């Protein structure tokens, strides 16, 4: 097990180096000069331009800029935002709980709906339910997030008035964050109306962000269930005279869930990518919106460090999933 773990960690090192190179190169390949972007429409006189280039270190050879960057990152220094002048890590820590909270609820939504739907579709294979569920899942998977989000806002918030349009909590509630998770903080303060407000603000963005994972989970659960239902031990269970519910719920589902757990783990990347759009539409103060803003501002420092931090999180989650998978399924360790 230890060897398996060390192997996995060793594999992360080249990935990490690759990511720093990609993040560094990517922002520099973006057309547009950060100094001109800062100056706005006024433009900047050539002499002042050179002065600023020097101040920001953009006059150094590219490899030297990269070496500097890696050196800083290695010591935990993720730099200071060009536009806000605040440390990138500090901004990340402030904003990340919002993204995490939204992703968590999106995932809960996707699992609560996706797993049961997948099971029923598998059990009633070929039925109208199965057909329409798989059709809907395909639509959900292909849904453009931006369009889907605005559609829900216009219908549920604008037309029906059931949910708030955007934001994390009603503006009448104002308190210093403790954990950064609205649903937890409101409970710590013991404010039920604030808690309800936070939950109601989560409904639409969680649905929008959870739509793609929902489709993936439903399909994955269905195919895993189908495979398991054909196994000998399920037939044996049925032959023993166990009830249908028990056979499916205990014998089949537990085994079918193994690949589903992996799928869920792998959805973390999808969630973080989806958060970029979802947060922008719903004015959700998380890291997705932060990245978009920074790309528009050509804030090199935030973009490259933000990419790196997000990649680190995805890698960590994948590592945990790998380990969990090995724990659940001993065959993996040997392989």
């Amino acid at each position, binding site marked *: 097990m230890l060897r398996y773990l060390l192997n996995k960690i060793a594999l992360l090192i080249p990935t990490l180096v690759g990511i720093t190179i990609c993040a560094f190169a990517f922002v520099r390949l973006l057309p547009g000069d950060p100094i001109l972007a*800062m100056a*706005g*429409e006024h433009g900047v*006189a050539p002499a002042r331009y050179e002065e600023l280039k020097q101040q920001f270190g953009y006059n150094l050879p590219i490899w030297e800029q990269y070496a500097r960057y890696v050196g800083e990152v290695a010591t935990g220094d993720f730099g200071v935002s060009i536009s806000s002048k*605040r440390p990138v890590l500090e901004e990340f820590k402030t904003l990340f709980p919002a993204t995490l909270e939204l992703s968590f609820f999106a995932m809960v939504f996707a699992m609560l709906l996706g797993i049961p739907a997948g099971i029923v579709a598998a059990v009633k294979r070929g039925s109208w339910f199965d057909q329409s569920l798989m059709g809907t899942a395909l639509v959900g998977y292909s849904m453009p997030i931006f369009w889907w989000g605005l559609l829900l806002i216009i219908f549920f918030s*604008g037309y029906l008035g059931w949910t708030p349009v*955007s934001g994390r909590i009603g503006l009448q509630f104002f*308190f*210093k964050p403790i954990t950064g998770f609205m649903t937890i903080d409101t409970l710590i303060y013991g404010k039920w109306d604030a808690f309800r407000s936070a939950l109601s603000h989560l409904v639409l963005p969680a649905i929008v962000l959870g739509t793609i994972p929902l489709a993936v989970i439903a399909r994955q659960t269905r195919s895993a269930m189908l495979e398991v239902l054909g196994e000998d031990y399920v037939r044996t269970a049925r032959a023993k005279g166990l009830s249908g519910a028990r056979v499916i719920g205990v014998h089949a589902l537990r085994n079918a869930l193994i690949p589903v757990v992996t799928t869920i783990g792998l959805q973390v990347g999808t969630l973080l990518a989806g958060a970029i759009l979802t947060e922008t*539409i719903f004015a959700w103060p998380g890291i997705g919106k932060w990245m978009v803003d920074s790309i528009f501002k050509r804030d090199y420092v935030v973009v490259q460090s933000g990419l790196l931090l997000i990649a680190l999180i995805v890698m960590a989650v994948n590592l945990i999933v790998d380990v969990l998978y090995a724990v659940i399924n001993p065959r993996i360790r040997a392989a």
Partner: protein
Amino acid sequence: MKKTMTFAAALLAASVLSGMASAKTLVYCSEASPANFDPGTTTGGNDFDASSRTVYSRLVEFKHGGTEIEPGLADKWEISDDGLVYTFHLHPGVKFQTTDYFKPTRDLNADDVVFSFDRQFNKENPWNGDKYLPNLTWDYYTGMDMPKYVAKWEKVDDLTVKLTLTEPNAPMLANLGMDFASIVSKEYADQLQKDGKMADFSTKPIGTGPFQFVDYQLDAVIRYAANPDYFKGKEKIDDLVFAITPDATARIQKVLAGECDVAPYPNPADIATIKANKDVTLMDQAGLNIGYMSYNTTIPPLDKPEVRHALNQAIDREALIKSLFQDAGATPAENLIPPTMWSWDKDVKTDAYNPDEAKKVLEAAGLKEIQLWAADRVRPYNPNFQRAAELIQADWAKVGVKANIVNYEWTKYREEGKKKDRPGAFQIGWTGDNGDPDNFFATLFACSAIGVSNYSSWCDKDFEDLIQKAKKTSDQAERTKLYEQAQVIFAKEAPAFLLAHSQVYAVVRNNVSGFKMDPLGIHRFDGVDKAE
């Protein structure tokens, strides 16, 4: 222990602030997060809405909803006959805001004024560089050429400040009404420096403006309270909240749902929906902007005014504006400056649509091909450069000129476009900073702006003499005459095709009164009230 303390403080804050619900609260759905709250260090309109126009005041102010200068922290001022010395007399008894992070011990005085400017250019000032914030660039101070014109700021006595210039510069007064010229507290700065917390100056602002800062939740909500000591009298709304909502459609839905009271910049596509709603009003105003297309006047055959006129005449401007701005609308531009600005000459007209005449001239000049530039960005004065380019391309094709469209990303676009040897026609525009005509004429078409923001590389001696003279003259009537003559020359020489001045919009709920559209693109909440 520390955690318990924070927790207790938070509980206290929560219990104190839950009493806010009964107070009169105005919610503004702003379009973006402010970079920080120090207006000297930022450049965006949304930065200024959140800092300079709420928390701070200036020596002079723009009239609410206009560009005329009126007294601010300075009750009155004198300008010496040679136009070199400005003496400002400060309003006595102006208090800086008292908050939980700063308690002022003295009133505003000349030291604060001198410090507010000194920190922006004096490299010896500890607040000028890295000790305060990393990589400070003071973009507006340098962008408005202040280092060139300001010789020194001096304290005469506690309530008198003297500004000496290196040469006469009439727009200086308007510059001092701009956001970067906000007056900050030297006492607060000194205290933070002593405590080793200089960066707080940009995140916990202290000013003399109508609202004082309460809290900012990063990228989400900014809270202000009315400044009880405001020297022009306490505001009618008790609490001002900025709910940061970047998506334009979501912003409008929030106003319609009553989640906010005022929201800027609706999508043109939503304008019909807004107009149909009985609870809200769509406010609009011709913006202080111009969309235009610069010809490089140094490269033949574009060096000949008749060729430039012919290219202008070949464009069906009315159809172009309609197609670009749609329901949002725009005012066709006759001059470089918009009609809301003083010195605008109503008798000057730009080229009328006349493709037949254009064809003759262009054939005679032998112009067969031209580069036509388009950027990838939406700007207030041109919502779609690419579409504009395609329509102009079609119009020019009709008169026998083949236009090749050149595309670049926005910052690269301007970088390439300002080069002296850039060929062809370059679409660009401008939004005014201070309501002074000099900010349009000299910034965009002075000889010294070639290679910076004079995209036509146009240097006309007569025009240059007029605008330089106007810059040095302090009498506005005299300046108006000079700018009128400059407009005549501009129309005759046609260094650019003038497109339009776009409308600026905001959506306001009907129970809000006193909100005014601002030609400078600023959103102000002083003087605003709300009926419950």
